[in-house]
Protein backbone atom coordinates (compact mmCIF):
# COMPACT_ATOMS: atom_id res chain seq x y z
CA UNK A 1 0.00 0.00 0.00
CA UNK A 2 1.24 3.42 -0.90
CA UNK A 3 1.77 5.98 1.86
CA UNK A 4 1.90 8.95 -0.46
CA UNK A 5 -0.18 9.85 -3.49
CA UNK A 6 2.98 10.31 -5.56
CA UNK A 7 4.03 6.72 -4.82
CA UNK A 8 1.11 5.68 -7.02
CA UNK A 9 2.86 7.31 -9.95
CA UNK A 10 6.29 5.92 -9.07
CA UNK A 11 4.84 2.41 -8.76
CA UNK A 12 2.97 2.72 -12.05
CA UNK A 13 6.14 3.96 -13.76
CA UNK A 14 8.02 0.86 -12.66
CA UNK A 15 5.19 -1.55 -13.51
CA UNK A 16 3.96 0.07 -16.72
CA UNK A 17 6.76 2.40 -17.94
CA UNK A 18 5.61 2.45 -21.55
CA UNK A 19 1.86 2.61 -21.05
CA UNK A 20 0.11 5.95 -21.62
CA UNK A 21 -0.32 7.88 -18.38
CA UNK A 22 -2.01 11.05 -19.55
CA UNK A 23 -3.44 12.40 -22.78
CA UNK A 24 -4.43 15.97 -23.57
CA UNK A 25 -5.08 17.19 -27.09
CA UNK A 26 -2.05 16.10 -29.15
CA UNK A 27 0.15 15.35 -26.14
CA UNK A 28 0.55 11.92 -24.60
CA UNK A 29 2.99 11.04 -21.84
CA UNK A 30 3.89 7.51 -20.81
CA UNK A 31 4.21 6.62 -17.14
CA UNK A 32 7.98 6.74 -17.38
CA UNK A 33 7.86 10.17 -19.03
CA UNK A 34 5.41 11.50 -16.46
CA UNK A 35 7.56 10.13 -13.62
CA UNK A 36 10.72 11.69 -15.04
CA UNK A 37 9.10 15.02 -15.80
CA UNK A 38 7.68 15.22 -12.29
CA UNK A 39 11.12 14.37 -10.89
CA UNK A 40 12.54 17.31 -12.84
CA UNK A 41 9.88 19.59 -11.38
CA UNK A 42 10.70 18.26 -7.91
CA UNK A 43 14.45 18.89 -8.41
CA UNK A 44 13.69 22.42 -9.61
CA UNK A 45 11.58 23.20 -6.56
CA UNK A 46 14.10 21.70 -4.14
CA UNK A 47 16.90 23.60 -5.84
CA UNK A 48 15.09 26.84 -5.11
CA UNK A 49 14.41 26.13 -1.49
CA UNK A 50 10.89 24.71 -1.55
CA UNK A 51 10.56 21.95 0.99
CA UNK A 52 8.27 19.58 2.83
CA UNK A 53 5.25 21.32 4.35
CA UNK A 54 5.32 24.30 1.95
CA UNK A 55 2.36 25.19 -0.22
CA UNK A 56 2.80 25.39 -3.97
CA UNK A 57 -0.03 26.95 -5.95
CA UNK A 58 -0.98 25.84 -9.45
CA UNK A 59 -2.72 28.67 -11.31
CA UNK A 60 -2.90 27.21 -14.79
CA UNK A 61 -5.13 25.54 -17.33
CA UNK A 62 -5.25 21.78 -17.37
CA UNK A 63 -2.73 19.97 -19.54
CA UNK A 64 -0.46 16.95 -19.44
CA UNK A 65 2.19 19.26 -17.95
CA UNK A 66 -0.13 20.33 -15.16
CA UNK A 67 -0.32 16.70 -14.03
CA UNK A 68 3.49 16.41 -14.04
CA UNK A 69 3.75 19.63 -12.06
CA UNK A 70 1.23 18.41 -9.49
CA UNK A 71 3.20 15.21 -8.90
CA UNK A 72 6.43 17.19 -8.71
CA UNK A 73 4.99 19.20 -5.84
CA UNK A 74 3.80 16.09 -4.01
CA UNK A 75 7.17 14.38 -4.41
CA UNK A 76 8.98 16.95 -2.30
CA UNK A 77 6.42 16.62 0.48
CA UNK A 78 4.75 19.94 -0.29
CA UNK A 79 1.01 20.46 -0.75
CA UNK A 80 -0.40 21.60 -4.06
CA UNK A 81 -3.01 24.35 -4.08
CA UNK A 82 -4.93 24.33 -7.36
CA UNK A 83 -6.54 27.66 -8.22
CA UNK A 84 -9.42 27.91 -10.69
CA UNK A 85 -7.68 29.20 -13.86
CA UNK A 86 -10.83 31.20 -14.61
CA UNK A 87 -10.89 32.77 -11.13
CA UNK A 88 -10.44 36.53 -11.16
CA UNK A 89 -6.87 37.59 -10.25
CA UNK A 90 -8.14 39.17 -7.05
CA UNK A 91 -9.46 35.85 -5.79
CA UNK A 92 -6.34 34.00 -6.91
CA UNK A 93 -4.25 36.56 -5.03
CA UNK A 94 -6.37 36.06 -1.92
CA UNK A 95 -5.77 32.31 -1.98
CA UNK A 96 -2.02 32.74 -2.51
CA UNK A 97 -1.81 35.05 0.48
CA UNK A 98 -4.26 33.12 2.62
CA UNK A 99 -2.19 29.94 2.72
CA UNK A 100 1.17 31.72 2.52
CA UNK A 101 2.14 30.07 -0.73
CA UNK A 102 5.87 29.58 -1.09
CA UNK A 103 5.91 28.83 -4.79
CA UNK A 104 3.62 29.46 -7.72
CA UNK A 105 3.45 27.61 -11.01
CA UNK A 106 1.57 29.58 -13.63
CA UNK A 107 1.87 31.41 -16.96
CA UNK A 108 3.40 34.78 -17.74
CA UNK A 109 0.02 36.38 -18.41
CA UNK A 110 -1.51 35.12 -15.18
CA UNK A 111 1.51 36.23 -13.14
CA UNK A 112 1.13 39.74 -14.56
CA UNK A 113 -2.54 39.84 -13.59
CA UNK A 114 -2.02 39.04 -9.89
CA UNK A 115 -2.58 41.72 -7.27
CA UNK A 116 -0.38 40.61 -4.40
CA UNK A 117 -0.09 42.99 -1.48
CA UNK A 118 3.01 41.24 -0.20
CA UNK A 119 5.48 41.27 -3.08
CA UNK A 120 7.89 39.13 -1.08
CA UNK A 121 5.38 36.31 -0.63
CA UNK A 122 6.42 34.06 -3.48
CA UNK A 123 9.94 32.72 -3.14
CA UNK A 124 9.75 30.81 -6.40
CA UNK A 125 7.67 31.39 -9.51
CA UNK A 126 7.81 28.92 -12.35
CA UNK A 127 6.23 29.84 -15.67
CA UNK A 128 5.13 27.05 -17.96
CA UNK A 129 4.75 29.58 -20.79
CA UNK A 130 5.23 33.27 -21.57
CA UNK A 131 6.64 35.92 -19.25
CA UNK A 132 9.93 36.46 -21.09
CA UNK A 133 10.50 39.71 -19.23
CA UNK A 134 9.99 38.18 -15.80
CA UNK A 135 12.39 35.40 -16.73
CA UNK A 136 15.05 37.85 -17.96
CA UNK A 137 14.82 39.95 -14.82
CA UNK A 138 15.14 36.83 -12.69
CA UNK A 139 11.68 37.22 -11.18
CA UNK A 140 10.58 33.86 -12.55
CA UNK A 141 11.89 30.54 -13.79
CA UNK A 142 10.91 29.25 -17.19
CA UNK A 143 10.07 25.74 -18.28
CA UNK A 144 13.49 25.33 -19.91
CA UNK A 145 15.00 25.55 -16.40
CA UNK A 146 13.04 22.44 -15.44
CA UNK A 147 14.25 20.49 -18.44
CA UNK A 148 17.89 20.98 -17.38
CA UNK A 149 17.26 19.17 -14.13
CA UNK A 150 17.97 15.50 -13.46
CA UNK A 151 15.03 13.16 -14.00
CA UNK A 152 16.02 10.84 -11.16
CA UNK A 153 13.93 10.41 -8.00
CA UNK A 154 14.28 12.96 -5.21
CA UNK A 155 14.57 11.99 -1.53
CA UNK A 156 11.01 11.55 -0.26
CA UNK A 157 10.56 13.12 3.17
CA UNK A 158 7.36 13.16 5.11
CA UNK A 159 4.53 11.36 6.83
CA UNK A 160 1.22 10.09 5.55
CA UNK A 161 -0.46 12.76 7.67
CA UNK A 162 1.24 15.57 5.70
CA UNK A 163 -1.12 17.70 3.64
CA UNK A 164 -1.24 16.61 0.01
CA UNK A 165 -3.43 19.39 -1.32
CA UNK A 166 -5.63 22.28 -0.28
CA UNK A 167 -8.86 22.86 -2.17
CA UNK A 168 -10.56 26.22 -1.77
CA UNK A 169 -14.35 26.13 -1.61
CA UNK A 170 -16.97 28.82 -1.25
CA UNK A 171 -17.25 30.30 2.24
CA UNK A 172 -20.42 31.90 3.59
CA UNK A 173 -18.58 34.85 5.12
CA UNK A 174 -17.33 36.12 1.80
CA UNK A 175 -13.95 34.40 1.77
CA UNK A 176 -13.16 30.98 0.35
CA UNK A 177 -12.03 28.29 2.78
CA UNK A 178 -9.03 26.02 2.17
CA UNK A 179 -9.87 22.36 2.79
CA UNK A 180 -6.68 20.54 3.78
CA UNK A 181 -6.49 16.89 2.74
CA UNK A 182 -3.66 14.63 3.85
CA UNK A 183 -2.06 11.87 1.81
CA UNK A 184 -3.63 9.34 4.14
CA UNK A 185 -7.14 10.77 3.70
CA UNK A 186 -6.85 10.99 -0.08
CA UNK A 187 -5.41 7.47 -0.34
CA UNK A 188 -8.12 6.09 1.88
CA UNK A 189 -10.59 7.19 -0.81
CA UNK A 190 -8.43 6.38 -3.84
CA UNK A 191 -7.60 2.85 -2.63
CA UNK A 192 -11.27 2.14 -2.00
CA UNK A 193 -12.35 3.54 -5.36
CA UNK A 194 -9.68 1.73 -7.38
CA UNK A 195 -10.78 -1.56 -5.88
CA UNK A 196 -14.53 -0.96 -5.89
CA UNK A 197 -14.59 0.13 -9.52
CA UNK A 198 -12.07 -2.52 -10.54
CA UNK A 199 -9.64 -0.13 -12.24
CA UNK A 200 -6.97 -1.80 -14.38
CA UNK A 201 -4.18 -0.70 -16.67
CA UNK A 202 -6.56 -1.26 -19.58
CA UNK A 203 -8.87 1.50 -18.36
CA UNK A 204 -9.12 4.96 -19.85
CA UNK A 205 -10.42 7.41 -17.27
CA UNK A 206 -11.94 10.72 -18.23
CA UNK A 207 -10.81 13.83 -16.43
CA UNK A 208 -13.62 16.31 -16.81
CA UNK A 209 -13.44 18.23 -13.51
CA UNK A 210 -10.90 21.02 -13.07
CA UNK A 211 -7.98 20.44 -10.68
CA UNK A 212 -9.51 22.64 -7.97
CA UNK A 213 -12.65 20.48 -7.94
CA UNK A 214 -12.29 17.34 -5.84
CA UNK A 215 -13.80 15.06 -8.48
CA UNK A 216 -10.37 15.28 -10.14
CA UNK A 217 -8.82 13.32 -7.25
CA UNK A 218 -10.48 10.10 -8.39
CA UNK A 219 -9.46 10.62 -12.02
CA UNK A 220 -5.83 11.53 -11.47
CA UNK A 221 -4.88 9.21 -8.65
CA UNK A 222 -7.29 6.40 -9.50
CA UNK A 223 -5.67 6.22 -12.93
CA UNK A 224 -2.16 6.15 -11.45
CA UNK A 225 -3.03 3.51 -8.87
CA UNK A 226 -4.05 1.13 -11.67
CA UNK A 227 -1.63 2.26 -14.36
CA UNK A 228 -4.64 3.39 -16.40
CA UNK A 229 -4.65 6.27 -18.86
CA UNK A 230 -5.98 9.66 -17.78
CA UNK A 231 -7.77 11.41 -20.63
CA UNK A 232 -8.15 15.12 -19.99
CA UNK A 233 -11.28 16.53 -21.62
CA UNK A 234 -10.47 19.84 -23.35
CA UNK A 235 -12.70 22.41 -21.63
CA UNK A 236 -14.05 23.85 -24.90
CA UNK A 237 -15.36 20.42 -25.91
CA UNK A 238 -17.40 20.19 -22.73
CA UNK A 239 -19.56 23.06 -23.96
CA UNK A 240 -20.84 21.09 -26.91
CA UNK A 241 -22.52 17.80 -26.02
CA UNK A 242 -22.25 16.46 -29.57
CA UNK A 243 -18.49 17.01 -29.57
CA UNK A 244 -18.23 15.60 -26.07
CA UNK A 245 -20.08 12.41 -27.05
CA UNK A 246 -17.80 12.04 -30.05
CA UNK A 247 -14.78 12.57 -27.81
CA UNK A 248 -15.89 9.82 -25.41
CA UNK A 249 -16.26 7.47 -28.36
CA UNK A 250 -13.01 8.39 -30.09
CA UNK A 251 -10.93 8.31 -26.93
CA UNK A 252 -12.55 5.00 -25.97
CA UNK A 253 -13.22 6.20 -22.44
CA UNK A 254 -14.03 3.26 -20.16
CA UNK A 255 -14.71 5.08 -16.88
CA UNK A 256 -16.45 8.44 -16.91
CA UNK A 257 -16.75 10.74 -13.88
CA UNK A 258 -18.41 14.15 -13.86
CA UNK A 259 -21.17 16.22 -12.36
CA UNK A 260 -24.67 15.13 -13.42
CA UNK A 261 -25.41 18.34 -15.33
CA UNK A 262 -22.79 17.38 -17.93
CA UNK A 263 -24.51 14.02 -18.36
CA UNK A 264 -27.93 15.68 -18.56
CA UNK A 265 -26.72 17.84 -21.42
CA UNK A 266 -25.27 14.76 -23.13
CA UNK A 267 -28.70 13.13 -22.91
CA UNK A 268 -30.56 16.21 -24.15
CA UNK A 269 -28.22 17.46 -26.85
CA UNK A 270 -25.46 14.91 -27.39
CA UNK A 271 -27.25 12.79 -30.04
CA UNK A 272 -25.97 9.78 -28.10
CA UNK A 273 -28.01 7.44 -30.30
CA UNK A 274 -25.48 8.09 -33.09
CA UNK A 275 -22.56 7.01 -30.96
CA UNK A 276 -20.99 3.69 -30.24
CA UNK A 277 -20.09 3.90 -26.57
CA UNK A 278 -19.65 0.23 -25.83
CA UNK A 279 -16.21 0.87 -24.31
CA UNK A 280 -17.86 2.82 -21.52
CA UNK A 281 -18.19 0.37 -18.63
CA UNK A 282 -18.74 2.68 -15.65
CA UNK A 283 -20.35 6.08 -15.33
CA UNK A 284 -19.78 7.83 -12.01
CA UNK A 285 -21.39 11.09 -11.02
CA UNK A 286 -21.27 13.33 -7.98
CA UNK A 287 -21.65 16.91 -6.90
CA UNK A 288 -25.39 17.42 -7.23
CA UNK A 289 -28.68 15.60 -7.60
CA UNK A 290 -29.09 13.79 -10.94
CA UNK A 291 -32.74 14.16 -12.07
CA UNK A 292 -33.94 10.56 -12.41
CA UNK A 293 -35.70 11.14 -15.73
CA UNK A 294 -32.40 12.05 -17.38
CA UNK A 295 -30.55 9.21 -15.71
CA UNK A 296 -33.19 6.80 -17.01
CA UNK A 297 -32.72 8.16 -20.54
CA UNK A 298 -28.96 7.93 -20.22
CA UNK A 299 -29.15 4.30 -19.16
CA UNK A 300 -31.38 3.46 -22.11
CA UNK A 301 -28.97 5.22 -24.50
CA UNK A 302 -25.86 3.65 -22.97
CA UNK A 303 -27.15 0.38 -21.53
CA UNK A 304 -23.80 -1.40 -21.26
CA UNK A 305 -22.37 0.72 -18.44
CA UNK A 306 -22.75 0.48 -14.68
CA UNK A 307 -23.90 3.67 -12.97
CA UNK A 308 -22.87 4.98 -9.58
CA UNK A 309 -24.02 7.96 -7.56
CA UNK A 310 -21.11 9.17 -5.41
CA UNK A 311 -21.58 11.54 -2.52
CA UNK A 312 -19.30 13.51 -0.26
CA UNK A 313 -18.39 17.12 0.46
CA UNK A 314 -14.81 18.19 -0.30
CA UNK A 315 -14.17 17.90 3.46
CA UNK A 316 -14.80 14.13 3.49
CA UNK A 317 -13.80 13.01 -0.02
CA UNK A 318 -16.40 10.58 -1.31
CA UNK A 319 -18.01 8.99 1.75
CA UNK A 320 -21.11 7.22 0.41
CA UNK A 321 -22.03 5.68 -2.91
CA UNK A 322 -25.03 4.11 -4.53
CA UNK A 323 -24.72 1.55 -7.32
CA UNK A 324 -27.75 2.24 -9.50
CA UNK A 325 -29.57 -1.05 -9.78
CA UNK A 326 -32.89 0.46 -10.72
CA UNK A 327 -34.07 4.00 -11.36
CA UNK A 328 -37.16 5.10 -9.44
CA UNK A 329 -40.24 5.20 -11.67
CA UNK A 330 -41.42 8.46 -10.18
CA UNK A 331 -39.69 11.37 -11.92
CA UNK A 332 -39.95 13.41 -8.73
CA UNK A 333 -38.05 10.81 -6.69
CA UNK A 334 -34.37 11.39 -5.99
CA UNK A 335 -31.66 8.82 -6.29
CA UNK A 336 -30.29 7.65 -2.93
CA UNK A 337 -26.75 8.68 -1.99
CA UNK A 338 -26.36 5.13 -0.79
CA UNK A 339 -24.24 3.60 1.94
CA UNK A 340 -20.86 4.41 3.41
CA UNK A 341 -17.71 3.55 1.48
CA UNK A 342 -15.20 1.28 3.15
CA UNK A 343 -13.22 3.24 5.70
CA UNK A 344 -16.08 5.63 6.46
CA UNK A 345 -19.08 5.59 8.68
CA UNK A 346 -22.09 7.85 8.23
CA UNK A 347 -24.87 8.53 10.67
CA UNK A 348 -27.95 10.76 10.78
CA UNK A 349 -28.18 12.84 13.97
CA UNK A 350 -30.72 15.27 15.37
CA UNK A 351 -30.10 18.75 16.74
CA UNK A 352 -28.91 17.27 20.06
CA UNK A 353 -26.52 15.03 18.16
CA UNK A 354 -28.46 11.91 19.02
CA UNK A 355 -29.04 9.28 16.34
CA UNK A 356 -32.41 9.50 14.59
CA UNK A 357 -34.19 6.24 13.78
CA UNK A 358 -34.39 5.04 10.17
CA UNK A 359 -37.17 6.78 8.26
CA UNK A 360 -36.73 10.09 10.06
CA UNK A 361 -34.92 13.19 8.90
CA UNK A 362 -31.52 13.93 10.40
CA UNK A 363 -28.27 15.65 9.53
CA UNK A 364 -25.55 13.52 8.05
CA UNK A 365 -22.30 13.18 10.03
CA UNK A 366 -19.25 11.35 8.72
CA UNK A 367 -16.30 9.76 10.46
CA UNK A 368 -13.37 7.78 9.15
CA UNK A 369 -10.08 7.91 7.34
CA UNK A 370 -11.10 10.19 4.49
CA UNK A 371 -11.86 13.32 6.55
CA UNK A 372 -10.03 16.59 5.98
CA UNK A 373 -7.46 17.79 8.51
CA UNK A 374 -9.25 21.15 8.78
CA UNK A 375 -9.61 24.51 7.05
CA UNK A 376 -6.33 26.28 6.47
CA UNK A 377 -5.83 29.01 9.05
CA UNK A 378 -9.43 28.83 10.30
CA UNK A 379 -9.49 26.91 13.59
CA UNK A 380 -12.87 28.41 14.49
CA UNK A 381 -14.46 27.29 11.23
CA UNK A 382 -12.86 23.89 11.62
CA UNK A 383 -14.36 23.51 15.10
CA UNK A 384 -17.79 24.30 13.71
CA UNK A 385 -17.73 21.19 11.56
CA UNK A 386 -15.19 18.73 13.01
CA UNK A 387 -16.27 17.59 16.46
CA UNK A 388 -15.59 14.77 18.82
CA UNK A 389 -18.95 13.11 19.42
CA UNK A 390 -19.84 10.29 21.77
CA UNK A 391 -22.19 7.80 20.18
CA UNK A 392 -22.91 4.71 22.25
CA UNK A 393 -19.54 3.31 23.18
CA UNK A 394 -17.64 5.11 20.47
CA UNK A 395 -16.18 8.54 20.64
CA UNK A 396 -14.68 9.86 17.48
CA UNK A 397 -14.26 12.96 15.36
CA UNK A 398 -17.19 13.49 13.02
CA UNK A 399 -17.64 15.93 10.17
CA UNK A 400 -20.95 17.71 10.16
CA UNK A 401 -22.08 17.88 6.51
CA UNK A 402 -25.07 20.23 6.72
CA UNK A 403 -26.92 17.80 4.46
CA UNK A 404 -30.30 16.52 5.60
CA UNK A 405 -30.89 12.83 4.98
CA UNK A 406 -33.17 9.94 5.84
CA UNK A 407 -32.10 6.35 6.23
CA UNK A 408 -34.22 4.08 4.05
CA UNK A 409 -35.36 0.50 4.64
CA UNK A 410 -32.41 -1.00 2.78
CA UNK A 411 -29.93 0.99 4.88
CA UNK A 412 -29.05 3.48 2.18
CA UNK A 413 -29.52 7.19 2.71
CA UNK A 414 -31.75 9.57 0.79
CA UNK A 415 -30.62 13.17 0.37
CA UNK A 416 -33.37 15.62 1.37
CA UNK A 417 -31.75 19.05 1.18
CA UNK A 418 -29.50 21.50 2.98
CA UNK A 419 -29.60 22.82 6.51
CA UNK A 420 -28.18 26.15 5.38
CA UNK A 421 -27.82 28.48 2.43
CA UNK A 422 -25.45 26.41 0.35
CA UNK A 423 -26.54 25.46 -3.16
CA UNK A 424 -25.13 23.55 -6.09
CA UNK A 425 -24.85 25.00 -9.57
CA UNK A 426 -23.21 23.00 -12.33
CA UNK A 427 -21.98 20.75 -9.52
CA UNK A 428 -20.07 23.56 -7.83
CA UNK A 429 -20.99 24.28 -4.28
CA UNK A 430 -21.84 27.85 -3.66
CA UNK A 431 -22.50 29.69 -0.42
CA UNK A 432 -25.14 32.27 -1.26
CA UNK A 433 -23.83 34.31 1.66
CA UNK A 434 -20.53 34.72 -0.14
CA UNK A 435 -22.28 36.23 -3.15
CA UNK A 436 -24.33 38.47 -0.88
CA UNK A 437 -21.31 39.78 0.98
CA UNK A 438 -19.64 40.63 -2.32
CA UNK A 439 -22.77 42.52 -3.40
CA UNK A 440 -22.86 44.32 -0.05
CA UNK A 441 -19.30 45.46 -0.64
CA UNK A 442 -20.51 47.54 -3.61
CA UNK A 443 -20.95 51.14 -2.42
CA UNK A 444 -24.41 51.56 -3.96
CA UNK A 445 -25.95 48.44 -2.42
CA UNK A 446 -28.18 48.80 0.64
CA UNK A 447 -29.58 45.23 0.80
CA UNK A 448 -28.78 42.11 -1.18
CA UNK A 449 -30.11 38.58 -1.37
CA UNK A 450 -29.07 35.71 -3.61
CA UNK A 451 -31.41 32.83 -4.35
CA UNK A 452 -31.25 29.70 -6.49
CA UNK A 453 -33.42 29.40 -9.58
CA UNK A 454 -33.89 25.69 -10.24
CA UNK A 455 -32.80 24.71 -13.73
CA UNK A 456 -33.08 21.28 -15.32
CA UNK A 457 -29.77 21.43 -17.11
CA UNK A 458 -27.55 23.22 -14.62
CA UNK A 459 -29.09 22.26 -11.30
CA UNK A 460 -29.52 25.87 -10.30
CA UNK A 461 -28.98 29.26 -11.81
CA UNK A 462 -28.46 32.16 -9.43
CA UNK A 463 -30.60 35.24 -9.09
CA UNK A 464 -29.63 38.17 -6.93
CA UNK A 465 -31.98 40.92 -5.85
CA UNK A 466 -30.61 44.20 -4.52
CA UNK A 467 -32.00 47.37 -3.05
CA UNK A 468 -29.83 50.37 -3.82
CA UNK A 469 -29.02 53.13 -1.36
CA UNK A 470 -31.01 56.34 -1.71
CA UNK A 471 -29.91 58.39 -4.71
CA UNK A 472 -27.40 55.71 -5.70
CA UNK A 473 -27.28 54.17 -9.13
CA UNK A 474 -25.76 50.89 -10.29
CA UNK A 475 -26.75 49.03 -13.43
CA UNK A 476 -27.02 45.26 -13.59
CA UNK A 477 -23.90 45.24 -15.75
CA UNK A 478 -21.95 47.25 -13.19
CA UNK A 479 -23.00 44.94 -10.35
CA UNK A 480 -22.11 41.88 -12.38
CA UNK A 481 -18.73 43.39 -13.20
CA UNK A 482 -18.21 44.00 -9.49
CA UNK A 483 -18.95 40.31 -8.82
CA UNK A 484 -16.85 39.04 -11.72
CA UNK A 485 -13.80 40.82 -10.36
CA UNK A 486 -14.19 39.02 -7.04
CA UNK A 487 -15.93 35.71 -7.62
CA UNK A 488 -15.33 32.76 -9.90
CA UNK A 489 -17.56 32.90 -12.91
CA UNK A 490 -19.85 30.09 -11.77
CA UNK A 491 -20.76 32.16 -8.68
CA UNK A 492 -21.66 35.35 -10.51
CA UNK A 493 -25.47 35.73 -10.49
CA UNK A 494 -27.05 35.04 -13.87
CA UNK A 495 -29.56 37.79 -13.15
CA UNK A 496 -29.31 40.77 -10.81
CA UNK A 497 -32.59 42.58 -10.23
CA UNK A 498 -32.96 45.91 -8.53
CA UNK A 499 -36.05 46.50 -6.40
CA UNK A 500 -37.37 49.20 -4.09
CA UNK A 501 -37.81 46.80 -1.18
CA UNK A 502 -37.06 43.19 -0.38
CA UNK A 503 -39.85 40.97 0.90
CA UNK A 504 -39.46 40.28 4.64
CA UNK A 505 -40.68 37.54 6.91
CA UNK A 506 -42.62 38.42 10.04
CA UNK A 507 -39.36 38.32 11.98
CA UNK A 508 -37.84 40.87 9.64
CA UNK A 509 -35.51 38.54 7.77
CA UNK A 510 -35.30 38.71 4.01
CA UNK A 511 -37.94 36.30 2.74
CA UNK A 512 -35.95 34.17 0.35
CA UNK A 513 -38.80 31.81 -0.28
CA UNK A 514 -40.80 34.63 -1.75
CA UNK A 515 -37.83 35.71 -3.86
CA UNK A 516 -37.47 32.17 -5.18
CA UNK A 517 -41.19 31.87 -5.86
CA UNK A 518 -41.28 34.63 -8.38
CA UNK A 519 -41.67 38.19 -9.38
CA UNK A 520 -43.64 39.37 -6.34
CA UNK A 521 -42.46 42.84 -5.43
CA UNK A 522 -41.63 43.58 -9.02
CA UNK A 523 -38.58 45.24 -10.42
CA UNK A 524 -37.92 48.88 -9.76
CA UNK A 525 -38.94 51.29 -12.52
Amino acid at each position, binding site marked *: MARFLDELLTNAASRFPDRPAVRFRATELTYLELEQLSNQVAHTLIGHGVKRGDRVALYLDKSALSIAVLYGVLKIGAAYVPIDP*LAPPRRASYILENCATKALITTGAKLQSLELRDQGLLKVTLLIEGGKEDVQTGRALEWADVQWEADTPVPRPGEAEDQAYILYTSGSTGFPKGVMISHRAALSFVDWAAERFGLTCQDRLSNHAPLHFDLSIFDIFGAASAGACLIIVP*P*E*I*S*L*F*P*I*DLAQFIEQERITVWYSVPSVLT*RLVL*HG*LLGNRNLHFLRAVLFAGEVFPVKFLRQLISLVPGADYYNLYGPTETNVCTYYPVDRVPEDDCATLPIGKACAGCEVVALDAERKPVPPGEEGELYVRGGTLMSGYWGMPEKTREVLNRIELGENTDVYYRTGDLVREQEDGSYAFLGRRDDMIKS*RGYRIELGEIESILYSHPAVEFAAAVPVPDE*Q*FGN*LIKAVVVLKKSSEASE*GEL*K*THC*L*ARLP*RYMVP*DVIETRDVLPRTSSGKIDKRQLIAGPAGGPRN
Partner: protein
Amino acid sequence: MTISPRSEPAAVDEALIGFIQKQFLYDRPGVQLSPDTRVIEDGIVDSVGILQLVGFIEKAFEISLRPDDLVLKNFETVAAIRTLVLARMA
Protein backbone atom coordinates in the same frame (compact mmCIF):
# COMPACT_ATOMS: atom_id res chain seq x y z
CA MET B 1 -33.55 43.19 -32.70
CA THR B 2 -34.28 41.50 -36.00
CA ILE B 3 -31.82 41.57 -38.79
CA SER B 4 -32.94 41.54 -42.40
CA PRO B 5 -33.03 38.05 -43.90
CA ARG B 6 -30.67 39.26 -46.62
CA SER B 7 -28.07 40.37 -44.11
CA GLU B 8 -24.59 41.06 -45.31
CA PRO B 9 -21.74 39.14 -43.63
CA ALA B 10 -20.47 42.38 -42.10
CA ALA B 11 -23.87 43.09 -40.55
CA VAL B 12 -24.03 39.57 -39.11
CA ASP B 13 -20.56 40.01 -37.60
CA GLU B 14 -21.54 43.33 -36.14
CA ALA B 15 -24.67 41.93 -34.52
CA LEU B 16 -22.81 38.94 -33.09
CA ILE B 17 -19.91 41.00 -31.79
CA GLY B 18 -22.33 43.50 -30.27
CA PHE B 19 -24.18 40.77 -28.43
CA ILE B 20 -21.05 39.00 -27.17
CA GLN B 21 -19.50 42.29 -26.01
CA LYS B 22 -22.61 43.29 -24.13
CA GLN B 23 -23.43 39.88 -22.69
CA PHE B 24 -20.04 38.38 -21.88
CA LEU B 25 -17.43 41.13 -21.98
CA TYR B 26 -19.18 43.86 -20.01
CA ASP B 27 -16.41 43.64 -17.44
CA ARG B 28 -13.66 43.93 -20.02
CA PRO B 29 -14.46 46.97 -22.15
CA GLY B 30 -10.84 47.02 -23.30
CA VAL B 31 -11.13 43.66 -25.06
CA GLN B 32 -11.75 44.16 -28.77
CA LEU B 33 -13.47 41.26 -30.45
CA SER B 34 -12.58 40.46 -34.01
CA PRO B 35 -14.22 37.88 -36.28
CA ASP B 36 -11.27 35.61 -35.53
CA THR B 37 -11.22 35.85 -31.74
CA ARG B 38 -11.51 32.37 -30.25
CA VAL B 39 -14.62 33.02 -28.20
CA ILE B 40 -14.92 29.50 -26.76
CA GLU B 41 -11.29 28.53 -26.11
CA ASP B 42 -10.52 31.93 -24.62
CA GLY B 43 -13.29 31.36 -22.10
CA ILE B 44 -15.42 34.32 -23.23
CA VAL B 45 -18.54 32.16 -23.64
CA ASP B 46 -19.23 29.43 -21.06
CA SER B 47 -21.79 26.63 -20.88
CA VAL B 48 -24.71 28.85 -19.88
CA GLY B 49 -23.47 31.50 -22.31
CA ILE B 50 -23.63 29.18 -25.29
CA LEU B 51 -27.37 28.69 -24.72
CA GLN B 52 -27.86 32.45 -24.49
CA LEU B 53 -25.90 32.90 -27.68
CA VAL B 54 -28.00 30.31 -29.51
CA GLY B 55 -31.18 32.00 -28.26
CA PHE B 56 -29.94 35.35 -29.54
CA ILE B 57 -28.97 33.95 -32.93
CA GLU B 58 -32.33 32.28 -33.48
CA LYS B 59 -34.24 35.40 -32.53
CA ALA B 60 -32.10 38.04 -34.17
CA PHE B 61 -31.71 36.25 -37.48
CA GLU B 62 -35.11 34.52 -37.42
CA ILE B 63 -33.61 31.12 -38.06
CA SER B 64 -33.75 27.87 -36.23
CA LEU B 65 -30.58 25.98 -35.68
CA ARG B 66 -30.61 22.22 -36.03
CA PRO B 67 -29.51 20.04 -33.12
CA ASP B 68 -26.40 18.99 -35.01
CA ASP B 69 -25.43 22.62 -35.61
CA LEU B 70 -24.38 22.91 -31.98
CA VAL B 71 -20.77 21.81 -32.35
CA LEU B 72 -17.53 23.56 -31.50
CA LYS B 73 -16.56 23.93 -35.16
CA ASN B 74 -19.57 26.23 -35.74
CA PHE B 75 -18.91 28.43 -32.70
CA GLU B 76 -15.12 28.70 -32.45
CA THR B 77 -15.07 32.27 -33.77
CA VAL B 78 -17.50 34.97 -34.83
CA ALA B 79 -16.54 34.16 -38.43
CA ALA B 80 -17.56 30.53 -37.90
CA ILE B 81 -20.87 31.55 -36.35
CA ARG B 82 -21.50 33.93 -39.26
CA THR B 83 -20.94 31.10 -41.75
CA LEU B 84 -23.48 28.99 -39.88
CA VAL B 85 -26.00 31.83 -39.68
CA LEU B 86 -25.73 32.62 -43.39
CA ALA B 87 -26.09 28.94 -44.27
CA ARG B 88 -29.28 28.65 -42.23
CA MET B 89 -30.68 31.88 -43.69
CA ALA B 90 -30.13 30.68 -47.24
